[in-house]
């Protein structure tokens, strides 16, 4: 639908804008002393022409001025369209003059038909004006849309961050940890104190770090290790941790708390379901200007699928999407009792270092 036709207010403004053009025609082409004839002849024609001019919108849409080659291809189309409209103008003028004459109200509009080339030229040139007007209209609405889209994307990203942060503080984890502390207080006070400190540090990090904030992978791994040592108090020998990270990867900057949900997933839906437990392995390295982190854990293929499972992973995906677009990916897979989460994102070097050095 035409943007001007679909809005009564805009249509009114547009027609009002055509009025001065009509007046210019009367002044330019009208004969002195016969102004009334000129007005009666040109103003209705101008009104009809205003609607013909709107059709330029569809031409502009078919030939957007996005790329240079397309612009050149549009020239013959614009020329032939203007010629058609010019011819149409002559025909309309002729018909309108005949109609006015037949009314016998003492007007002699046929004198304007003596110079059909002038009418043709006016019609064609005004159509080019309409074309230019529509290109401007389309460009401005496109930029408005782009602005709205970027606002929406920003809003979505912030929402995802908030959800991610809220999910980070899993109440289940907190209550279980408090229960472990409660148990340790009587039997092993120093272990209880240690667990309190671990939990406090973990909570402080989780609450302090804004989700959009970038921290080094080393810092992120510290948070993950703190989380895992808390879970180790609960799960005991069932939970083991193995790390294999390159020096380069450790310096990379990552969105805060992007890895922790993967470790949590490995414990809650992997190790916790195994009688003998197992090892959570975290590997990180850089590959062609990308940072790749793998989190693998053994899992029970027959474990009951909890409703909440997968929420943490989908939040990580949303955050990657909002911050890196297609360049940030989380792939997960389960094979022969082993679950793997592979996180890949653009390698963001530590401050003061050039990304190309690692490319």
């Amino acid at each position: 639908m035409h943007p001007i036709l679909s809005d009564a207010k805009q249509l009114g403004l547009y027609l009002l804008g055509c009025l001065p053009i009509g007046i210019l025609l009367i002044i330019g082409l009208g004969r002195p002393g016969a102004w009334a004839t000129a007005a009666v002849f040109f103003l209705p024609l101008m009104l009809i022409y205003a609607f013909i001019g709107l059709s330029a919108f569809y031409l502009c849409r078919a030939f957007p001025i996005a790329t240079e080659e397309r612009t050149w291809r549009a020239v013959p189309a614009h020329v032939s369209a203007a010629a058609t409209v010019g011819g149409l103008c002559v025909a309309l003028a002729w018909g309108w003059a005949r109609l006015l004459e037949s009314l016998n109200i003492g007007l002699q509009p046929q004198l304007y038909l003596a110079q059909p080339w002038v009418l043709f030229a006016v019609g064609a040139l005004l159509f080019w004006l309409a074309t230019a007007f529509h290109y401007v209209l389309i460009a401005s609405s496109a930029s408005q849309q782009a602005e709205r889209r970027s606002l929406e994307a920003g809003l979505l990203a912030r929402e995802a961050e908030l959800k991610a942060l809220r999910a980070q503080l899993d109440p289940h984890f907190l209550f279980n940890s408090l229960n472990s502390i409660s148990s340790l207080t009587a039997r092993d006070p120093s272990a209880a104190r240690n667990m309190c400190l671990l939990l406090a540090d973990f909570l402080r990090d989780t609450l302090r770090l804004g989700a959009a904030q970038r921290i080094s992978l080393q810092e992120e791994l510290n948070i993950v290790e703190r989380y895992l040592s808390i879970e180790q108090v609960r799960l005991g020998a069932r939970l083991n941790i193995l790390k294999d990270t390159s020096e380069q990867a450790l310096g990379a900057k990552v969105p805060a708390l992007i890895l922790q949900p993967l470790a949590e997933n490995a414990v809650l839906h992997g190790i916790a379901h195994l009688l003998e437990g197992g090892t959570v392995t975290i590997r990180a390295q850089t590959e062609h200007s990308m940072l790749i982190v793998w989190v693998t854990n053994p899992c029970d293929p027959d474990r009951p699928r909890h409703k909440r499972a997968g929420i943490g992973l989908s939040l990580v995906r949303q955050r990657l999407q909002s911050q890196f677009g297609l360049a940030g990916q989380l792939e997960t897979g389960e094979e022969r009792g082993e679950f793997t989460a592979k996180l890949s994102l653009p390698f963001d070097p530590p401050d003061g270092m050039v990304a190309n050095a690692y490319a």
Partner: protein
Amino acid sequence: MLTPKPLTVVIVDDEAPARALVREYLEQHADVHVVAECTNGLEAVKAANELRPDLLILDIQMPKLDGFEVLDLIGADATGVVFTTAHDDYALRAFEVHAVDYLLKPFGPERFAESLRLARSRIAQRQPIPARELLEAHREGSAIDRILIRDRSQVHVIPVEQIDYVEAQDDYVSIRAAGRSYLKEQTLGELEGQLAAKGFVRIHRRYILNVSRLAKIELSEKDNRVAILSDKTELPISRSGYAKLRELL
């Protein structure tokens, strides 16, 4: 002076600190005897079966079998159970619907003593936990992924996709899966509801069929229809069962 028989207790929790805490709290109660500690649901079912304890202190989130599945398997014997759990809305709703006592981790010694007192009076009155109602409230008619069957002290876990068909046998159902039959104390109607979303159809008053096992339907004498399974087993199809099958296929 007459000493009452001590209360025998089994502690079930996969986390060592949680078990230690319950043990510590129980030390305050002289007439309680801890007969076993189990680190998972399978051990719990075995211990409940072999030791016949008066009371199970049962955690909900555990590997292999969760607390509800343990309850499902020990069902009729579940006179005394105190459930323990960290925050989990989903599980708690079931307890609240049937006014079953539970302990929210972390819990203190007073709250624990109160639970123990409630459990004792329940045991003294031989008033069992409403196990079936509790399980139903927990599942809330949702589809199940697997069926658990206790065979003496052994537990069989049967993924529903391995089941060929289920046959009603008095108070039991006979579940045919992977060339074997398993008996479970359950009604066919109950199972029908749980399996409906998994591609199973009640084709007869006495049979639920896994539709993916159906090879063909044949007409037998007197307008009756018979389902022929891919392993050549023949099952009768009732009129309404045929209507349901046609709707699905």
